[in-house]
């Protein structure tokens, strides 16, 4: 694949030998121990270096060739000569390329991931697929593992499971970590040696062996200060102390995204046949074995198992899947994603066409030059080749700018992932600019250059245009701008006017969110889900007993926290405020009760549902705007009362009195059965938007139920801290929990204001993207109008000169020119405004949120100013031409 791409850019008689050499260099790099990734990068760099030199050499002998190195220099000169056009063209196309490259990186990293380990593509997983249940049960039973260990086609078969534990090390804060309980083969399979000490051996997996742990580089650095004498020291995981036997090098995170590993100690003999815990299995294809051969062996064994245990295993089939695909192995989705990427790529075509319009106006002024070159013997292909290379310089610059933009966006996404429970995402999902992305961007640049350079060139280099040019001399004949161009101007204006209001609205709304105050002391709150880890996930402890133990520990935790002088209050809820799960809600319509008493609003709408303790609103200083707050009577399974927020009243109830109205959760969506009975809940109170104030679009509709905290697992604590930084206090929460029970584990502890900020991140990214795309389109449209206006006026230069020579008043000439321009502008504005208005009313005013009345006229006025200025400049220039000069041209 890489060679084929390289062959596209390295041309000339020696191309074959150069390509052979570059390949050999890559092989030598790999043999010297260079990583695959780096070797590929060096290859790509070598390809471009060689392409440039062969190309340059070709430029010295342009005979017979369609393009030459001189064209590149000409392209650079054209950029400098028309800086405005260059800026608009490069920026416009760079936006499209950046979006395309970022989406390409994300989509193909997830869809076709690569395992960044030695021969990582040969690491596989064996998954059980239950055909009867139509689901992909990724896990495998412990008993299956015993069988897979004897496979001939897959080596080093092992397994892991992830458990969460409190990590306690001397002098560092307690932390909740995802520990991989893994077989020793997991380290061998990755072919990564420990940086210090050793990793597990099979001995460590035996029951009764000493507790040992292997830690990752980060844990070693952050928790032990990179102590070189770390081996032999101990750390506490949950209730047990473990001796550190090894440190893995930086970046090692197999099997998922782990930094702490303990031996997997499960003996199949301890469990009844189908009651053992579930595991994830991995292995490495034996040398020379293909995935299909491994699948054949696994299928045979799987079929034997199905025959032996028809009740449990009749429909279960095992599949061998590349390990990198363990998170998403859906070949059927490929097409959908390819289509998505294609649509994203089309953005470049749209923007490229816009730039082509600009370039066309420039090319049109160069018909004289083209005609002369044709007359001197240049073929049409040669002329087009030159225009293509000139455009390629433009699109190449856009590609570089776009790649820089994509790099920034991908870094933002990478930084955002850990903030959203990133430990659960695989370590090999690292979004970056791969050689694949570079190849895609190079292809985009070529397509862009074809659109921008060759399309206008095709039109400007037709025989009739050139003939007209040669016969009529300078200033006459040549390209005519007919109806097509009128349509182009009108549609440019219309598109700009239609999307500008939305961009302005979103941009200003975003500026408002940035400075938004939560309306309560968010900085004083810490939130954390509280878990109680089980020794064995298979659950020997009955649910009831577990819940009772959890409730007792949780009450004690709350009591101890309350007793801390720094704590002003402790609250319990099902979710972090602002992070509630959304459910579709139906509203009882009193107006229709006469005909059909139980008819609900046909279109159910989503609302976040929170179950909170009775004192929730008091503790967060949330005022009750109408009705009452919760009381003890609102708690329980039979309670049928809810409190809603103002956004719910506005958007779900569509205004009016909320108190006394009834809502229920849509049975169709909840159970898939429209007839299923769902209880109605009466609204007894209304509260303002929380945690985001009502004024912002982020204040989504919410429904609150009162709940007895004893019935929730896991409960989310919200601790209000006074006089101490919440971040500092989070350590205290873990200490108190640990002292109660080492298995009582606060999950991610975050200051509420940070949670709110991270919820804003995707919105910020989305809004920025939309604003950038819209503004670049508007910029392109404005530039297009300007270019086309100047072109039209420039073509009427002679006419204007003659009229001036014949004594016409300058203002009358000016009015004549502007009249035509303004007429086109007006038509575009009317169409655009109408479209924006229609979209706004169709979306129920959601798009502009009632700002249409001032926003639409403002946008119209803005476009008149831009268009008028675009026409005025060239017209005034024409007026300044001395009539004698204009006539001399005749």
């Amino acid at each position, binding site marked *: 694949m890489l060679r084929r791409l390289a062959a596209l850019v390295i041309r000339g008689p020696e191309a074959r*030998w150069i390509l052979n*050499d570059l390949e050999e260099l890559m092989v030598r790099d790999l043999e010297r121990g260079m990583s695959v990734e780096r070797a590929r990068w060096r290859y790509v760099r070598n390809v471009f270096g060689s392409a440039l030199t062969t190309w340059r050499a070709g430029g010295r002998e342009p005979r017979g060739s369609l393009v030459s190195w001189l064209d590149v220099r000409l392209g650079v000169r054209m950029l400098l000569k028309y800086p405005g056009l260059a800026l608009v063209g490069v920026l416009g196309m760079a936006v499209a390329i950046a979006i395309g490259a970022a989406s390409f990186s994300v989509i193909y990293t997830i869809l076709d991931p690569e395992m960044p380990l030695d021969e990582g593509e040969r690491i596989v997983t064996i998954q059980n697929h239950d055909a009867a249940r139509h689901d992909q049960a990724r896990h495998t039973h412990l008993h299956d593992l015993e069988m897979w260990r004897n496979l001939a086609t897959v080596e080093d078969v092992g397994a892991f499971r992830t458990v969460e534990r409190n990590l306690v090390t001397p002098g560092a804060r307690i932390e909740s970590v995802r520990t991989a309980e893994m077989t020793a083969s997991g380290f061998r399979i990755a072919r990564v040696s420990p940086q210090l000490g050793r990793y597990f051996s099979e001995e460590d997996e035996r029951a009764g062996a000493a507790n040992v742990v292997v830690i990752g580089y980060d844990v070693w650095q952050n928790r032990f200060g990179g102590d070189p004498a770390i081996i032999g020291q101990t750390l506490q995981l949950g209730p047990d102390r473990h001796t550190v036997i090894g440190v893995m090098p930086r970046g090692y995170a197999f099997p998922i995204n782990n930094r702490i590993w303990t031996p997997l100690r499960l003996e199949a003999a301890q469990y009844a046949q189908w009651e053992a815990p579930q595991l994830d299995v991995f292995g490495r294809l034996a040398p020379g074995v293909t995935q299909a051969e491994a699948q054949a062996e696994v299928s045979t064994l799987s079929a034997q198992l199905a025959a032996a245990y028809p009740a449990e295993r009749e429909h279960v089939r095992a599949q061998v899947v590349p390990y990198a695909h363990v998170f998403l192995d859906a070949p059927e989705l490929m097409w959908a994603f390819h289509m998505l990427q294609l649509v994203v790529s089309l953005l470049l075509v749209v923007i490229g066409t816009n730039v082509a319009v600009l370039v066309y106006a420039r090319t049109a002024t160069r018909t004289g030059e083209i005609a002369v070159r044709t007359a001197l013997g240049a073929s049409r292909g040669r002329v087009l080749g030159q225009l293509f290379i000139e455009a390629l310089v433009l699109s190449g610059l856009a590609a570089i700018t776009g790649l820089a933009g994509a790099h920034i966006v991908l870094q933002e996404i990478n930084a955002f992932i850990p903030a959203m429970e990133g430990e659960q995402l695989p370590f090999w999902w690292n979004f970056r600019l791969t050689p694949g992305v570079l190849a895609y961007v190079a292809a985009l640049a070529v397509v862009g250059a074809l659109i921008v350079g060759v399309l206008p060139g095709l039109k400007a280099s037709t025989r009739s245009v050139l003939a007209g040019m040669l016969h009529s001399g300078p200033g006459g004949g040549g390209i005519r701008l007919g109806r097509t161009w009128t349509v182009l101007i009108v549609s440019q204006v219309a598109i700009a006017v239609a999307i500008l209001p939305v961009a302005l609205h979103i941009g200003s709304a975003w500026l408002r969110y940035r400075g938004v105050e939560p309306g309560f002391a968010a900085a004083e709150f810490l939130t954390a889900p509280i878990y109680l880890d089980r020794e064995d996930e298979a659950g020997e402890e009955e649910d009831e007993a577990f819940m009772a133990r959890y409730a007792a520990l949780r009450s004690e935790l709350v009591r101890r926290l309350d007793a801390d002088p720094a704590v002003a209050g402790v609250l319990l809820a099902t979710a972090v405020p602002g992070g509630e799960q959304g459910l579709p809600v139906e509203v009882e319509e009193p107006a229709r009760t006469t005909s059909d008493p139980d008819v609900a609003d046909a279109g159910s709408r989503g609302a976040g549902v929170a179950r909170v303790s009775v004192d929730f609103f008091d503790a967060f200083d949330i005022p009750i705007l109408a009705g009452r707050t919760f009381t003890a009577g609102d708690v329980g399974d039979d309670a049928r009362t809810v409190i809603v927020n103002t956004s719910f009243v506005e958007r779900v109830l569509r205004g009016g009195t909320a108190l006394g109205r009834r809502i229920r959760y849509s049975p169709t969506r909840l159970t898939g059965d429209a007839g299923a009975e769902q209880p109605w809940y009466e609204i007894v109170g209304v509260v303002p938007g929380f945690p985001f104030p009502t004024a912002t679009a982020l204040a989504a509709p919410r429904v609150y139920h009162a709940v007895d905290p004893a019935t929730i697992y896991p409960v989310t604590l919200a601790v209000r801290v006074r006089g101490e930084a919440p971040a500092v206090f989070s350590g205290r929460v873990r200490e108190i929990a640990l002292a109660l029970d080492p298995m009582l584990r606060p999950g991610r502890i975050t200051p509420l204001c940070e949670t709110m900020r991270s919820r804003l991140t995707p919105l910020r990214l989305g809004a920025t993207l939309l604003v950038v795309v819209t503004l670049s389109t508007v910029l392109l449209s404005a530039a297009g109008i300007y270019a086309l206006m100047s072109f039209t006026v420039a073509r009427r230069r002679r006419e204007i000169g003659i009229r001036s020579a014949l004594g016409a008043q300058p203002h009358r000439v000016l009015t004549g020119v502007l009249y035509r321009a303004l007429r086109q502008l007006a038509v575009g504005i009317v169409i655009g405004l109408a479209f924006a208005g229609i979209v706004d009313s169709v979306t129920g005013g959601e798009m502009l949120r009632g700002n249409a009345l001032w926003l639409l006229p403002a946008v119209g006025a803005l476009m008149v100013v831009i268009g008028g200025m675009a026409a005025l400049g060239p017209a005034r220039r024409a007026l300044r031409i001395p009539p004698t000069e204009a006539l001399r041209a005749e």
Partner: protein
Amino acid sequence: MNTYLGDFEQLILFSLLHLGDDAYGVTIRESIEERTGRAVSSGAIYTTLGRLEERGLVTADAGQPTPGPGRPRKYYALTPAGARALLEAYSTMQAMAGGLIPRLAKLVER
């Protein structure tokens, strides 16, 4: 015939001398990079070799079977004309530089 040799051409001809029978793109590139610390592209090497071949200063042989696995290679060798041109270029340079190096070094130190 024009026997003038550019800087890079001289480097390539010297590397052919060094490498003897094993002179092809990859080894030439590595020999220049190792001895001069200068990064060169394969494209530049082949373009220059092509020019030298046209001038009859080197010969190319793409017909030789390549030892071991891998793709075929094109081996290059110096012709007598090439050797003469290189000797001439180097002698010219030496004649011009004769006795000047210590002075040059002093100037650099200043």
